[in-house]
């Protein structure tokens, strides 16, 4: 059996479904194939919900700023589902002079890119968030950062794209892409079904690597397992997105009152890629990080822990573009653990790339051919 659409999207995460939505809105026929039986089973439903501009790479900053200015504020209304976008600002905390140095570097970098961000002292940080530990000596502050609910955002794009006629098939794992006379024209799934297309967008997270390899493309990515937890509901305490200079933990309080906190423990690259699992040290390490900055939360109960894979690129910024070698193919992967905050704008850009439109922002820094060997 063979089936045809103008654009075939491989991977129904937040970014794949955002691309599907922006294409369907332009009345372009689109089919989305998702390997999992569930929509949003990848990083998109497992992340910390940070919609952050501060601390971004200079190449990515314009995307994050575009999204915060133009897409996030109206997203719930546009998609017809509340995605709990909250623009409470981002506080990144430091306890030592060395921490402040790191924060000053991040701040200078973002200010150079035009972002409203500055260093503040303990007193001002405490005014913004009264629950801080007295060990904090300063912070960086970006008032226009925030957070949103990743489960709802991912499903909202899916639901809206589907309503506009995007065809979704789940349990459909793409095994390979096929070239015909120099053009990529077809994807074949594990059960042998063939899907023909005018253009395909590969947005399958770390697994994009496997799919792209079938037409000779290589993206230098590494899978990292990131762990995260959620607490019981608590009365409203603060609206900011929080982080630290050392990235020992980050998180926010969600609309319904629970805290969502993620963290790193240092062993992320050593997990064997496959099913998502939890290490014995992850939640403990994150809790020590949290309590070190927010001692008042130490009696709060954790109700759930989970993990997700990120597709960390060699230079930690995404690959988005149409490689010269493979006409018919658009790549959107290697979001390197910070793709949720830019998921609407990344979806928009991929939709434009896939249809030969001028992109809303310059994407040349994300090109597939930017990588150079050491020697």
């Amino acid at each position, binding site marked *: 059996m063979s089936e045809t659409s103008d654009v075939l999207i491989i991977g129904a995460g937040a970014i794949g479904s955002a691309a599907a939505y922006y294409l369907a809105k332009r009345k372009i026929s689109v089919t989305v194939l998702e390997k999992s039986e569930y929509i949003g089973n990848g990083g998109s439903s497992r992340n910390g919900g940070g919609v952050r501009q501060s601390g971004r790479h200079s190449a990515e900053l314009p995307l994050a700023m575009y999204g915060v200015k133009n897409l996030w504020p109206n997203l719930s209304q546009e998609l017809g589902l509340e995605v709990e976008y909250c623009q409470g600002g981002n506080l990144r905390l430091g306890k030592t002079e060395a921490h402040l140095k790191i924060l000053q570097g991040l701040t200078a970098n973002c200010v150079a890119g035009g972002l409203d961000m500055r260093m503040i002292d303990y007193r001002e940080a405490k005014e913004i968030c009264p629950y801080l530990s007295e060990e904090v000596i300063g912070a960086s502050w970006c008032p226009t950062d925030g957070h949103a609910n990743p489960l709802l955002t991912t499903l909202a794009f899916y639901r809206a794209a589907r309503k506009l006629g995007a065809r979704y098939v789940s349990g459909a794992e793409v095994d390979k892409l096929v070239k015909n006379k120099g053009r990529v024209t077809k994807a074949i799934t594990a059960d042998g079904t063939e899907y023909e297309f005018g253009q395909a967008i590969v947005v399958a997270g770390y697994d994009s690597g496997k799919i792209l390899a079938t037409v000779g493309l290589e993206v230098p990515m590494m899978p990292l397992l990131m762990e995260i937890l959620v607490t019981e509901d608590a009365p409203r305490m603060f609206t900011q997105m929080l982080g630290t200079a050392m990235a020992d933990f980050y998180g926010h309080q969600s609309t319904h009152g629970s805290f969502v906190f993620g963290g790193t423990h240092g062993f992320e690259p050593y997990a064997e890629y496959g099913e998502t699992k939890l290490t014995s040290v992850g939640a403990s390490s994150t809790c020590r990080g949290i309590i070190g900055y927010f001692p008042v939360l*130490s009696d*709060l109960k954790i109700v759930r822990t989970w993990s997700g894979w990120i597709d960390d690129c060699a230079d930690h910024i995404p690959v988005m573009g149409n490689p010269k070698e493979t006409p018919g193919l658009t790549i959107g992967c290697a979001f390197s653990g910070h793709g949720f905050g830019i998921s609407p704008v990344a979806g928009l850009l991929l939709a434009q790339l896939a249809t030969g439109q001028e992109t809303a922002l310059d994407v040349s820094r994300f090109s597939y051919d930017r990588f150079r060997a050491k020697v």
Partner: protein
Amino acid sequence: MTLERNRDFGDYVPAPDDDLVICRCEEVTKGEIRQAVRDGMFNVHEVRRLLRCGMGLCQGRTCAKLVKAIIARELNLPAPSLLDATARAPMRPVEMKVFANEKGL
């Protein structure tokens, strides 16, 4: 299993017990679950992510079976054909300070 997700459910027929609260922790009604299925949420995981049923303090211990049965009925499938939601550690809510303790008790 491959699943085409663009099926047409026809018009929503309200049921007399649509107001029934199914998930008590998060106060989710039967009608909301039925509507979610029609909006494309075809399994326990997706419905839970959309509505939070089973995400509260009891983590679905009370309502999981009921939610599954409602989804299955809306899809015209036998309930056992739907997979359960994933259970995650900790199995009972545990304080952060307990998790954070490196030295043992």
